[in-house]
């Protein structure tokens, strides 16, 4: 009895060690990619900003601020009191900028996760079952490629009213197409592998083969494309909000730029134009570099 538990714990030790070694290896490879580390730091800071926005922002995003003489402080250049100046309504740009991070991250994470779920499921089913089902699903994907995302989101927002949620749902409806194609082509070749035949011979159901045997191998691809989609959808939300049909119910970086543009303040108000645009750019680039970092870790050929 004692010998058996001994052996068990030794086995657990070995498994644990191999996991630990694997984690250390991943961390090392990821750590060598300096851009990916910087990207991770930037995304973490943005997440922190979004979570603690009410504590970090000195004012409410739509609160009117007043100058010392009691007049509304409109279009002020940056000062200590207003680190990013004020806009033409007399609102604090710094507070709006902090709250704006919430929309971008919400949009990025929600559409990234949904695209991973929907795109991978369609890709797995299409590549595993082949035949007519595959043909139909892939024609649907082809058709989605003919629908540019920005106009589609616009039209859906026109009918359902513009809000963050409309934008997110409309984006998910089109953006899963690339994921489905990628996962399908990988599944097509994986389904021919001996381990799939072995699993089938030992009585595993189709669902089990798809989601327990094939899907885990494709996790890296899902993460690489999913992280890319996060960046892309942040850009898309900003664009639609800029057109006045996006996150009108929340203060987003795109909405800030729309206000700058429509008020004509772009002629001079650099303090109001630069922060939101720069933040969108930096956050999106960070997601792209994260995606490449994951690729480095999971694809040894690239090293």
């Amino acid at each position, binding site marked *: 009895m004692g010998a058996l538990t001994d052996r068990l714990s030794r086995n657990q030790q070995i498994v644990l060690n191999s996991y630990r070694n694997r984690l250390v290896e991943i961390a090392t490879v990821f750590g060598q990619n300096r851009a990916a580390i910087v990207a991770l730091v930037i995304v973490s800071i943005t997440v922190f900003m979004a979570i603690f926005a009410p504590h970090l922002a000195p004012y409410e995003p739509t609160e009117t601020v007043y100058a010392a003489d009691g007049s509304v402080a409109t279009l002020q250049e940056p000062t200590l009191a207003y680190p990013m100046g004020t806009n033409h309504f007399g609102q604090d740009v710094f507070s709006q900028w902090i709250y704006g991070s919430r929309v971008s991250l919400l949009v990025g994470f929600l559409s990234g996760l949904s695209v991973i779920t929907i795109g991978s499921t369609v890709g797995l089913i299409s590549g595993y079952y082949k035949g007519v089902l595959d043909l139909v699903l892939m024609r649907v994907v082809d058709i989605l490629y003919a629908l*540019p995302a920005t106009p589609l989101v616009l*039209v859906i927002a026109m009918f359902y009213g513009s809000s963050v949620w409309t934008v997110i749902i409309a984006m998910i409806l089109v953006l899963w197409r690339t994921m489905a194609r990628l996962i399908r082509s990988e599944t097509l070749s994986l389904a021919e592998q001996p381990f799939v035949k072995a699993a089938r011979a030992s009585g595993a159901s189709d669902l089990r083969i798809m989601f327990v045997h094939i899907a885990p191998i494709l996790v890296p691809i899902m993460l690489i494309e999913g992280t890319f989609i996060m960046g892309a959808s942040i*850009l898309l939300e900003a664009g639609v909000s800029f057109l006045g049909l996006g996150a009108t119910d929340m203060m987003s970086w795109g909405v800030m730029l729309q206000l700058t*543009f429509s008020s004509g303040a772009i002629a*001079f108000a650099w303090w109001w134009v630069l922060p939101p645009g720069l933040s969108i*750019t930096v956050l999106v680039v960070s997601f792209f570099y994260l995606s490449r970092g994951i690729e480095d870790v999971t694809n040894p050929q690239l090293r």
Partner: protein
Amino acid sequence: MVQKSRYILQRLALMLVSLFAVITLLFFLFRVLPGDPASQLVSPRFSDEQRQALLEIHGLTEPLHVQYITYLGNVIQGNFGVSFQHGSPVFPFIVDKTINTLSITMPAVLLAFTFGPFVGANFAWHRNKPLDTYGTGVVLVAFAAPIFWTGMLGLMVFSFYLGWLPAGGMHAPTYTGTGLVDRFVSADFLRHAILPIVIFFLWRLSQPTLIIRNNMIDLLNAPFLKLKRAEGLSERNVMYRHGARNALLPLIHYSALAIGFAFGGSIILETVFSWPGVGRAMWSAVLASDYPVAQGAFTMISVVIIVLNFVVDIISVYIDPRVAEEGVQT
């Protein structure tokens, strides 16, 4: 040869199926969604007779399936109805606007696909050296920066601060030309077009650049390049004449996708620069709930994308006959 014709026929059939599906999808998207066109069109102030008359003009009194069949027939004849806003036929209006859109997006995409491969080849040749590391970074930043923001910065600097360029539009307010030639061939047009073209070009540069870079890196150790080096050709020669040329092939497929992105992005670009194109027409139609124009513009954009994809498929099978073998099987 047989394989090539089979491939072309197959692509043609696919194109027709896609066209039909997209046109159908857009019809139902615009009819079935809430906020039906009748309520958008008719103000509650109107009397019942006026309301009825308006609905009949726009063909909205028929049952849905009758509307659908009429609509299919109309689309084939290029009839997208009349605009709710200005009462003129949608199709000629949209075609005119699409030409304006192409006048800035095509030069930008062509520039990107001319310079991109050159830049990408250089990145690949200097792989993991500063030129590649920072160059790739710059290209990625140009892609990640929202075009409405870079457009705003461009306007801020070149038109408001320096005063060199106009702040938007396609022509000076005094413009009275009517023909297509004087619309696009003038110094005035160029002055208005240069900033949107440059902004669009920078945004679209990343795709061809990075695709060529990655393809070239895969090719760098290919035996045929080693042979060329062994033959004593200069690195420059090996790189451009033999390496880049082979890396170019996959780019043809991406050019069709790029055109799709160009139309999607044109809505935003044209709004920033008050450019009278199809994207901006669609945007103002959406804001005004002018659904025939919004639907017509959307259909137009999708049809152009599908047809161009077909054209690209045909071009690529003539350049690289291997495409036909892969294509016919699926």
